[in-house]
């Protein structure tokens, strides 16, 4: 049995070291080619006409003037007259032309008439009683949800909860399947309870109330609690704002073979999503990507504009068509994190023991509504009462955003807990530790807390609320904890050792800026005793073995495990070929420092190149596979479940209301770390993104017109260099961590910043600013409220 296990510390040469990112030189020199940079011969430029209203019906479309313009090569109507539009910026008509300016002119020449319909873009607290009118789903409801890209799991959950108002025939199911309705949804309709008597009886509501959940005896627990705190907390809708906008270039080699360059987090998963709408086999679609300028959860599908680009290309005789979203569209339609707000009541004993949780939460994920965030987060309070209302509105569809639902849940939970600790005048550090047994990873947090406190100087800096204000500057500290899964996804690769000593790996994964290339190269080079630069990497193409989409921190575990299996097999095959030349058994050989040598007599060796010359005429090629199911991996090289602690220090100007984060600390566990340098960068990036969404970011919708008011990078503010304080990152490594295997790191550190910063502001001011982003107006309003209360 080959020894696939991760090597122990003394047998690692590169794993766990500080290796520089292998694709950095390409990126810093402008040589890295992104999808946006791909220029195919005869390239045409695609543009999209987007609906100007948040809710409307298309009355008529007249493209005749655009058709007559010289240089216009194809026009594709995306949504026909009669279609209902559910958010401003939705796709209507697309054009391909010889250059971008011509395409823009053509878009302006298209006449579309709309009938405006009433819209809702607010995610304010649902009025009492709202959402109770939800009944069984009609066929129209289902059609609407599918058109609006409501996530499958959500449609299924609504079907399970409310049933349907129609009796579907076998022909209906057949039609649905042909229209591309996912099998899981069709199955859910089959299983759904049928209430035909309800057809047309229930009025459609924007509010969908989930069933209340109760655990333990919350009423009794609250009546017996020695301290009860109540508050309103929340996080608004924010956008992904990828630097490289969404988009693709498509071209047809012939009538049924498509070549797509796409900006995506999911190279291996794109062809399957394009096949059905384009009516060609997935096997006929080649998807390629070298680099992607950010995704953060928003780039898993080809999107309607990606399918449209391929259709435009076909109409233009197969010529390549590029369509990348403009910045305003990128912010309006290409990614939004659902909002979440809650009125929370927390009960605790005098000694800080958490006894009860009650929450009434709401939020929106656009037309789909969105689900309840996992609250109370991390701390499983023994007595709970929860209800959630999803708001279905016209702000555009939601997408996964780095650690879906967790950052919101952390704000709703950790801020409420900090409030009750403040009420008891207990240091939140002590309060959180007092209740740490309510979490799933008490041991991890217990080890992380003192390290974080030391790095922050918590003991010196924490003070009872509002007691450190001088010269108008209030200072405070706050903390939060988080958790995430991060098990490796399914991944396949082919690794070859060539007779000339070169090594290559082919894998249909992608490097979304998280260092996937480097991770693969480190694992391979470590096992072969080579340098990372000796490993030639081929990734980002459907011509290579498939590897999962880069979401949910699943990539490091997936690609490192498949690479490890392939490289161990290939190395063992090489050692077997070399053994006779060294008069040794393969088991007594080791590949290290560019040589194959005897373990029993390290002086006896041959160099790598010479060793490989004994391979023969054809290379050694080995396949590595990591299975989605842990049980199928023997041994399992990846794992799930990490914990992290973060602390923030802020300085708040009480005259201007401006919050500056002055220091942040992150202590993070992620199992065996492949490259410490990149791991630290990932965590720092998450802290910085966290500062950004805590203080600045919000997708601002205009209630009157229903459009987004800040779809640019001036008013949709991202943190800049000036907003970034001292950042301290500590990665948990060594015994207790390494042997767990590789676990992903993209999501967990992005969870806590909002809660930690909000708690620091509360500590500084003595009053809670409950809803992110913590902007000067909210800070000043909170201060003036306490002054009024004090007066």
């Amino acid at each position, binding site marked *: 049995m080959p020894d696939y296990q991760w090597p122990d510390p003394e047998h690692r040469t590169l794993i766990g070291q500080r290796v*520089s*990112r292998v*694709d*950095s*030189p*390409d*990126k*810093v*020199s*402008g*040589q*890295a*080619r*992104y999808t*946006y*940079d791909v*220029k195919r011969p005869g390239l045409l430029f695609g543009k999209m006409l987007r609906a100007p209203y948040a809710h409307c019906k298309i009355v008529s479309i007249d493209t005749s003037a655009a058709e007559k*313009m*010289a*240089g*216009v090569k194809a026009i594709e109507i995306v949504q026909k007259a009669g279609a209902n539009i559910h958010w401003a910026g939705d796709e209507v008509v697309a054009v391909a032309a*010889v*250059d*971008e*300016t*011509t395409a823009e*002119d053509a878009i302006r020449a298209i006449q579309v008439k709309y009938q405006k319909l009433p819209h809702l873009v607010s995610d304010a607290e649902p009025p009492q009683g709202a959402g109770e009118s939800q009944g069984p789903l009609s066929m129209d409801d289902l059609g609407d949800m599918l058109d609006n890209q409501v996530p499958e799991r959500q449609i299924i959950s609504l079907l399970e909860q409310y049933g349907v108002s129609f009796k579907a025939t076998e022909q209906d199911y057949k039609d649905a399947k042909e229209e591309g309705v996912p099998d899981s949804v069709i199955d859910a309709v089959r299983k759904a309870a049928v209430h035909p008597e309800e057809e047309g009886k229930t009025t459609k509501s924007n509010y969908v109330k989930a069933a209340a959940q109760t655990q333990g005896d919350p009423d009794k627990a609250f009546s017996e609690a020695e301290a009860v705190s109540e508050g309103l907390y929340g996080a608004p809708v924010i956008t992904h704002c*990828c*630097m*490289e906008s969404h988009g693709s270039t498509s071209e047809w080699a012939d009538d049924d073979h498509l070549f797509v360059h796409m900006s995506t987090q999911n190279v291996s998963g794109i062809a399957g999503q394009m096949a059905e709408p384009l009516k060609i086999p997935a096997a006929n679609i080649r998807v390629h990507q070298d*680099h*992607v*300028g*950010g995704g953060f959860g928003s780039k898993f599908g080809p999107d309607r504009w990606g399918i449209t680009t391929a259709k435009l290309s076909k109409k233009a005789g197969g010529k390549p068509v590029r369509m990348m979203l403009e*910045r305003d569209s990128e912010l309006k339609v290409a990614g939004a994190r659902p909002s979440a707000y809650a009125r929370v009541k927390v009960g605790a004993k005098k000694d800080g023991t958490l006894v009860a949780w009650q929450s009434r939460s709401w939020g929106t994920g656009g037309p789909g509504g969105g689900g309840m965030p996992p609250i109370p987060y991390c701390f499983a309070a023994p007595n709970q009462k929860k209800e959630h209302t999803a708001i279905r509105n016209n702000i555009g569809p939601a997408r996964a955003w780095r650690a879906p639902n967790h950052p919101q849940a952390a704000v709703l939970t950790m801020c409420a807990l900090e409030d009750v600790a403040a009420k008891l005048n207990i240091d939140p550090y002590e309060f959180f530790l007092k209740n740490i047994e309510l979490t799933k990873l008490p041991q991890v947090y217990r080890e992380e807390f003192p390290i974080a406190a030391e790095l922050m100087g918590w003991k010196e800096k924490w003070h009872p609320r509002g007691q450190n204000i001088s010269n108008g500057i209030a200072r405070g500290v706050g903390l939060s904890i988080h958790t995430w899964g991060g098990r490796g996804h399914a991944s396949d690769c082919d690794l070859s050792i060539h007779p000339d000593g070169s090594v290559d790996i082919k894998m249909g994964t992608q490097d*979304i*800026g*998280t*260092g996937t290339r480097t991770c693969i190269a480190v694992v391979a080079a470590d096992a072969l005793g080579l340098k990372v630069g000796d490993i030639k990497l081929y990734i980002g193409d459907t011509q290579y073995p498939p590897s999962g989409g880069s979401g949910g921190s699943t990539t490091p575990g997936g690609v490192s495990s498949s690479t490890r299996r392939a490289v161990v097999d290939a190395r063992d095959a090489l050692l077997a070929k070399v053994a006779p030349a060294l008069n040794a058994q393969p088991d007594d050989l080791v590949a290290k420092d560019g040589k194959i040598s005897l373990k029993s007599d390290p002086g006896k060796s041959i160099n790598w190149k010479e060793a490989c010359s004994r391979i023969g005429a054809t290379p050694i090629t080995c396949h590595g596979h990591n299975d989605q199911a842990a049980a199928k991996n023997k041994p399992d090289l990846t794992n799930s479940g990490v914990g992290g602690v973060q602390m923030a220090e802020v300085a708040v100007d009480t005259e201007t209301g401006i919050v500056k984060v002055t220091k942040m600390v992150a202590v993070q566990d992620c199992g065996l770390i492949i490259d410490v*340098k*990149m791991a*630290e*960068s*990932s965590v*720092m*990036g*998450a802290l*910085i*993104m966290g500062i*950004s969404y805590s203080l600045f970011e919000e997708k601002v919708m205009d209630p009157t017109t229903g459009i987004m008011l800040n779809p*640019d*990078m*001036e008013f949709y503010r*991202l*943190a*800049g*260099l*000036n907003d*970034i304080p001292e*950042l301290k990152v500590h990665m948990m490594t060594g015994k207790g961590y390494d042997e767990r295997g590789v676990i992903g790191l993209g999501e967990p550190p992005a969870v806590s910043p909002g809660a930690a910063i909000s708690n620091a502001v509360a500590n500084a001011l003595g009053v809670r600013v409950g809803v992110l982003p913590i902007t000067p107006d909210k800070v000043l309003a909170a201060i003036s409220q306490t002054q009024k209360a004090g007066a």
Partner: protein
Amino acid sequence: MHDDETVLKEPKNANEENSGVSRRDFLKISTIAAAVPVVAKPNLVMAAGAEVPVHGPGKVPMQFNVNGKSYKASLEPRVTLLDALRDTMDITGAKRVCDRAECGSCTVLLDDKAVYACSVLAIEAQGKKITTVEALLEGGQLHPIQQAFVDNDASQCGFCTPGFVVACKAMLDKHPNPTPDDVLHELSGNLCRCGTYAGIRGAVAQAARKGA
């Protein structure tokens, strides 16, 4: 519209030609009024009682000096320097992100000064020395600033990185020993989404120490 050939035509009425343009197009049109050296002779039209030179609206021949090489192109006057670089000259290091002078990903040097290429018209960049991130690579060797970005892991997705590298070059040319305030001021026009600012700060410090 015109496909590939250069067409110059006399606008019937300057106001009519300008009506119905977007705010951004208007800004682009209005900046042409500051007569720039161009290859083709502009048409003169009356505007507000004065003769104003107007180029286009069709394609006009243009010539550029990019990274020491000469490029010829036939472009409409409304085309930005960024789009000319990327789509006509296939020099793609400068990235198109916000396309309105907010993020700095398209930063290039125009006569050694950092500018947002998305907000300079190509027609205005003629006769000036245009330097993009590609030019910092000499004989396949990374420039010390680029090496500092690698060493300090100052790029993740990397899409903002070329803009930062060029902005950093312009800053160090101006302030060889930058103070922290110089750094904040000179790099405040560039944004990153992945959160690489800590690495960038380290890279700037390293590059300054090495006298890049």
